């Protein structure tokens, strides 16, 4: 039998950041797609106010979190690795159905499997920045300052909005897959509970493959 040990994996700030960001992204999507015209919920004017305010808060959160990543060195968790990437993919495609073990062990120093590293890094350096920048471009497309209406000079609102909308779809698709994949931990809810409490039971040492673990 493999030894399970409770490990404190997610610090208080990391959990706060994670859930706040999750809420904000969902809320931005909810209000954003109303602005997009997909449905009517809060009313256009309210949706714009809510979206803008949630965006400001998200930007503040992102700034704090960048700081956190560097002071704690947690940014290293997101360094991509090709090693075991294929194995991780194979696990989701076939292994999981045979109840094969997770190909990569979760440890405090390496909380993320190779696929997570890659996807989360993509979010951090591509998708979220694209959303923030295109969102800011949308806001500053025209702005009143000092008694004059200025233009950011980046004037193609159609392009700005297209990029922002595309990014929104991609983030939503990510959320769908992400919410599902967290059920693939040791138990259906072990990952979820870890992100709420900070604690997760991790294997201490590997023994030979355990097939019956029910």
């Amino acid at each position, binding site marked *: 039998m493999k030894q399970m040990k409770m490990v404190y994996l997610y610090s208080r700030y990391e959990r706060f950041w994670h859930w706040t960001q999750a809420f904000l992204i969902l809320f931005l999507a909810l209000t954003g797609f109303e*602005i*997009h015209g997909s449905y009517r919920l809060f009313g*256009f004017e309210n949706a714009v106010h809510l979206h803008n*305010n949630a965006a400001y808060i998200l930007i503040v959160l992102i700034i704090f979190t960048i700081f956190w990543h560097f002071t704690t060195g947690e940014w290293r968790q997101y360094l991509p690795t090709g090693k075991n990437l294929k194995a991780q993919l194979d696990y989701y495609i076939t292994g999981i*159905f045979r109840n094969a073990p997770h190909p990569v062990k979760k440890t405090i120093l390496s909380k993320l499997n190779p696929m997570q590293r890659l996807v989360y890094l993509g979010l951090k350096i591509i998708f979220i920045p694209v959303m923030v920048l295109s969102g800011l471009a949308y806001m500053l497309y025209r702005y009143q300052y000092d008694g004059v209406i200025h233009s950011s000079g980046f004037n193609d*609102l*159609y392009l700005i909005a297209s990029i922002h909308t*595309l990014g929104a*779809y991609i983030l939503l698709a990510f959320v769908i*897959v992400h919410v599902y994949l967290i059920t693939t931990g040791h138990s259906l809810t072990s990952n979820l509970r870890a992100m709420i409490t900070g604690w997760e039971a991790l294997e201490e040492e590997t023994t030979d493959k355990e097939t019956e673990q029910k």
Partner: protein
Amino acid sequence: MKNIATFLLTVVLPIVIITIMLRDATKDNTLLDNLREEYAIPHIPSVDHSKHAELQRDFDDPHEITATCISCHTERGSEVLANAHWNWEREAYIEGRGVTYLGKRNLVNNFCTGILSNEATCNRCHIGYGWFDDGFDHNNPYNIDCLICHDNSGLYDKARGMAGYPVPGLDFQTIVQQVGRPEKDNCGYCHFYGGGGNNVKHGDLENALLNASWETDVHMSAEGANLECIDCHKTTNHQMLGRYYGVSSDNTMRATCEECHTSLPHTTKTLNEHAVTVACQTCHIPVYAKVNPTKMHWDWSTATDRIDGEPYEIIDTLGNLLYTSIKGDFHWVQNAIPGYTWFNGTADHHLISDVISENDSIIFINTLFGDAADPGARIYPVKVHTGRQPYDTEYRTIIQAKLWDQQPGMGALWVDLEWEEALAAGMEYIGMPFSGEYDFIDSKMFLMINHMVSPAEQALQCEDCHTRRGGRLTAINDVYIPAQTTNAAIDHFGVIMLLMATAGVVLHALMRFLARKKRTH
């Protein structure tokens, strides 16, 4: 539990608070308060005309009144002679035409087509006496009718079919002692009745403005600013601000909202930013023809019909004239929703000499220039008036019919009800050829909607335009309007991606479930 509480406190609460704060940040509109104060001060005339010795008498000849005015106001005569209200023509540069001299004097419109050959009746609304035909002397200041604009007694009246001369028997002694600045009913005497009846032509200018409610017109209503026309159509030396693009062509001397309200009138920045693209009128005049209907369509082709040899009229239950043998078919609309179009302040006109191409199924009486790429253009509300006008199928020009005459047998349509003779008489008067072959062609004219500004609470709301379907600006498709405009490629891609992600997840979960069942059994 503690986590959830912290979360609500740190994330949800700030959003709610900030949002409420921003929404209720309706700062006092000091700009508007200042304007209200400024315009609440009544105008006190510097002169009481009843005290002038020259005016202590009666007049027989209206020209003599004008001469008396000019004897004190020595330079005003020549000022008026240079005025478009007098000349019905203005110099303007038009893209594609060069410098033109156009105006009511020589243009066609979508109503009675034009004044030529009809001056005796049309020119009742000229600020002069005796423009019966092209022999009128535009250089004689004594032909000016000062009273039509400056009579404050309300007694002055011009006669029908008399080219601007007053009705006989007026008490001129009383009238001349009560002259002053033009008031609403001076301007309205002509401008409310364009097209041949109250509110027929403009839709936003009609006699209900004399006693407008606050909802009808915040500017002219006594409950509102109680303004006179000339408060906005500011005038110096008889040159007034204001352009009507049925006759004007250039972007000069316009009367604008910004004159008083500045280009940053709102306390909300987002709304001020809109004003770069959207004219004030677009949101603030959500409907026009609020009190009485306006004519939206005039089909000349059905005119001259008779029943038992007699001309007739059809009037609907609301009193709107739907058909009359002398003019054809009409459509009327009350509480009309404007059309919307880009406009940069310049316009072109269909001249009577313009050849209608074989391919044209419709003629545009005027064309408003501007599009999204034009930094000087904004989206404006317009009344779109459609019609059917007679044209020469051989020479392919619009035909100006002779409509009116004192007596029968002179070819006037409204008197004799004969198209061919009316068309021939009109074109002969103008000096243009008429082949004798004619038909009717669809025509369209755009009239800017500038009056009947509603109270702010009744202005358009975000969703009137920011909506996927049925928004006010559906016709505007060359600028990105959030919620209305979509990038179809991205929407299709996005929705398919979301569906595939969902399907993939469901399928994967199902397979996991089945695999586990198999293992445990």
